């Protein structure tokens, strides 16, 4: 019973942060399940993937009704992330996993540095490409924006999909900086759109994990229920908080994620 309540609580928090930042909460769930609850790694990854789907679905009902999700941008980049995820298996064979993890950690730290330097969103771009708009309750303004560097963003999303295929995370940690820093979409629209995208990648992986029998209802059910509750709260916070606060929280989560990956690469028992 104590374990059940523990999982519910951890999943609730992962749901809040995962949906608030558009990263899906796998970043929090996998280490917590393996370290604190002693769940075997493959079962933990399978559980976390279901949690990412639950976060994505629940959070999206809120983001999409506020008009924050750029559905067309998300769908276009999903072409790249799904193809990248399929290719993940190939990359895993060609490159040593530990080398990859260190490279990813380096990219994450670079992203943290870039986000920190920029200090929140600049003026929204009016490029006319994939243009969309939303109402931002934090500033009380209607924001209209377009995106730039669509081609480069698409290519990098191939890489983001590849990573999520390899590491079993939704890949939101890479999608958010690609759309925000590179393509120039405001952070809130980026978080909402990333939230939509991670569900697709995670659903594909989950179907495979289900077929291979890694899903254990003992862990998955309380985790899914907890995360659904958390993902109802996260979008409300994301919508109301200033972009600057979201950006700093994102940097902290990414920093921790990078450190965990390095630890894993050098053989720490995670």
């Amino acid at each position, binding site marked *: 019973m104590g374990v059940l309540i523990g999982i519910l609580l951890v999943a609730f928090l992962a749901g809040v942060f995962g949906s608030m930042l558009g990263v899906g909460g796998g970043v929090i769930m996998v280490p917590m399940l393996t370290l604190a609850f002693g769940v075997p790694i493959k079962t933990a990854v399978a559980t976390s993937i*279901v949690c990412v*789907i*639950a976060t*994505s*679905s*629940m959070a*999206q*009902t809120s983001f*999409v*009704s506020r*008009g924050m*999700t750029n*559905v*067309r941008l998300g*769908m*276009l980049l*999903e*072409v790249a992330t*799904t*193809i990248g*995820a*399929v290719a993940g*298996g190939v990359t895993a064979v060609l490159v040593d996993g530990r080398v990859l993890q260190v490279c990813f950690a380096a990219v994450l730290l670079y992203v943290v540095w870039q986000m920190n330097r920029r200090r929140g969103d600049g003026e929204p771009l009016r490029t006319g490409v994939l243009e969309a708009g939303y109402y931002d309750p934090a500033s009380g303004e209607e924001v209209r924006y377009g995106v730039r560097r669509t081609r480069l963003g698409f290519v990098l999303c191939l890489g983001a999909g590849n990573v999520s295929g390899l590491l079993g995370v939704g890949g939101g940690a890479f999608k958010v900086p690609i759309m925000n820093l590179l393509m120039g979409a405001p952070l809130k629209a980026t978080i909402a759109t990333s939230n*939509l995208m991670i*569900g*697709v990648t*995670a*659903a*594909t*992986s*989950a*179907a*495979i994990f*289900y*077929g291979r*029998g890694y*899903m*254990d*209802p*003992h862990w*998955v*059910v*309380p985790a*899914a*229920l907890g995360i*659904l509750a958390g993902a109802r709260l996260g979008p409300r916070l994301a919508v109301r908080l200033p972009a600057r606060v979201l950006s700093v929280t994102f940097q902290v989560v990414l920093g921790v994620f990078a450190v965990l990956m390095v630890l894993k690469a050098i053989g720490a028992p995670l």
Partner: protein
Amino acid sequence: MDPVERTIRTVLLVGIAVSVGLMAVGLVLGVARGEALPRAMVPISALPAALARLEPAAYVSLGLIVLVATPFVRVVGSLVAFAFERDRTYVLITTIVLVVMCLSVLLGRA
């Protein structure tokens, strides 16, 4: 909300409601029979029979299947909505996403 957004929202809400409902039924059945949560999913081929026998594991498994299937249905829903809007580019883009999703599930099985 435009029609595409409304479709996505409806699909997701229904998916979550059905999934949580089924898991709740499974949990209630489990408590009623004095069983703990099952440790393995019921294979899809064995589901109908197990559901008919009111096995808690079957309802929990079906709930999780619905949860996992929701993003697939969401993509199909977007495809239909783009088709209604006669947005050919996005019908094509969404079809590619759907095909790649199905392909990777098939490849992963092999």
